[in-house]
């Protein structure tokens, strides 16, 4: 049986760790709340944008917009030849399998694209993805670690605008984003979303609008916003999902710490009792010996 002093030291260590994980759990819970509000807040805009594009869109117009160009009708012939993959990960760890799930999804997608003979360049957001792909020594087209857990529309614009320009110029045939979809705090599956070419939301034109300027010019203005917004939502949802994942991970760690403490405490008590019993036995034994 371990020495009581040794046990005491381990108990203290587990107690301290549990204190830290407990605190992180609480911090994540409050950050999750705010991040969740941002996810919900971004919804009406995305919905309105999708509705309007759906109403203005018609297949005849599609031919004229570079952002709607389908890979099949690409300038260089059939199929997706060159594509870009944007992977969003978090900057910080201690959130369970959150980042490794995202990275795994990105690798799966990369393999899938490369199996179709598509040259794919990789754009990374977040430290965890950056360090992983540095480790595998894969070529990375761009990387950013400065976004953190409060992404703004500006961030999304900076990242997506160059890709949109290159897509419009025919330099890229497709752009995918791998992110964590925020279904709820406990369900955040890694997801791949194709943001370019734009898949127009399907909705039949229901009302005859007075359009000012023309439908074409409005679409021309709104399509880039739509792409930007999709990416912005991916950023916001991943940020919220990260906090959700961290909260769960830290809750598990706290619970595991508690279980460990219970066992250690019990072992310690038994060891202490054993020591006392032994000392008593020795004293009694000694006294008996003196009598004799």
């Amino acid at each position, binding site marked *: 049986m371990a020495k009581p002093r040794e046990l005491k030291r381990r108990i203290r260590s587990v107690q301290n760790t549990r204190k830290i994980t407990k605190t992180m759990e609480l911090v994540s819970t409050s950050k999750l709340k705010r991040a969740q509000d941002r996810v919900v807040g*971004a919804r009406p*805009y995305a919905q*309105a944008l999708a509705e*309007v594009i759906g109403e203005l869109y018609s297949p005849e117009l599609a031919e004229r917009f570079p952002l709607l160009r389908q890979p099949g009708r690409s300038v260089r012939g059939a199929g997706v030849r060159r594509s870009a993959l944007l992977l969003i990960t978090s900057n910080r760890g201690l959130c369970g399998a959150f980042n490794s799930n995202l990275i795994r999804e990105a690798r799966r997608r990369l393999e899938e694209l490369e199996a179709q003979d598509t040259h794919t360049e990789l754009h990374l957001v977040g430290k965890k993805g950056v360090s992983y792909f540095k480790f595998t020594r894969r070529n990375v087209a761009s990387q950013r670690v400065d976004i953190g857990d409060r992404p703004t*529309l500006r961030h999304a614009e900076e990242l997506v605008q160059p890709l949109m320009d290159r897509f419009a110029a025919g330099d890229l045939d497709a752009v995918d984003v791998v992110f964590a979809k925020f279904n709820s705090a406990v369900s955040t599956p890694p997801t791949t979303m194709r943001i370019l070419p734009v898949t127009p939301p399907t909705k039949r034109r229901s*009302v005859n*609008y007075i359009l000012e*300027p023309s439908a074409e010019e*409005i679409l021309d203005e709104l399509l880039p*916003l739509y792409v930007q917004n999709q990416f912005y939502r991916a950023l916001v949802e991943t940020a919220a999902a990260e906090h959700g994942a961290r909260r769960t991970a830290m809750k598990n760690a706290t619970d595991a710490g508690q279980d460990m403490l219970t066992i250690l405490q019990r072992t310690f008590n038994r060891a202490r009792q054993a020591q006392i019993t032994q000392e008593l036995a020795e004293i009694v034994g000694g006294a008996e010996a003196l009598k004799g």
Partner: protein
Amino acid sequence: MMRVSVISAERAVFEGEADAVVAPAYDGLVGILPRHAPFMTLLGTGIAKIHRSGETIRLRVAGGFLQVASNVVRIVAGSASPADS
């Protein structure tokens, strides 16, 4: 009266009833009164005013579009925030 909502990319900024709306369209101000015909226009940059029973709410908007359909006005702007008078 008509329903008005002002939505920015980050959140819904305003939601409520109004008697009139004046918004900066891409080529100048547009005024919307109740029972306006279905209408859609691009927005420029400027101050949108929402008039409601004597008071006026002023919001700074930039980019996006304005949509009117069945007495519902939607101002969907890239950015929208309360403007100081």
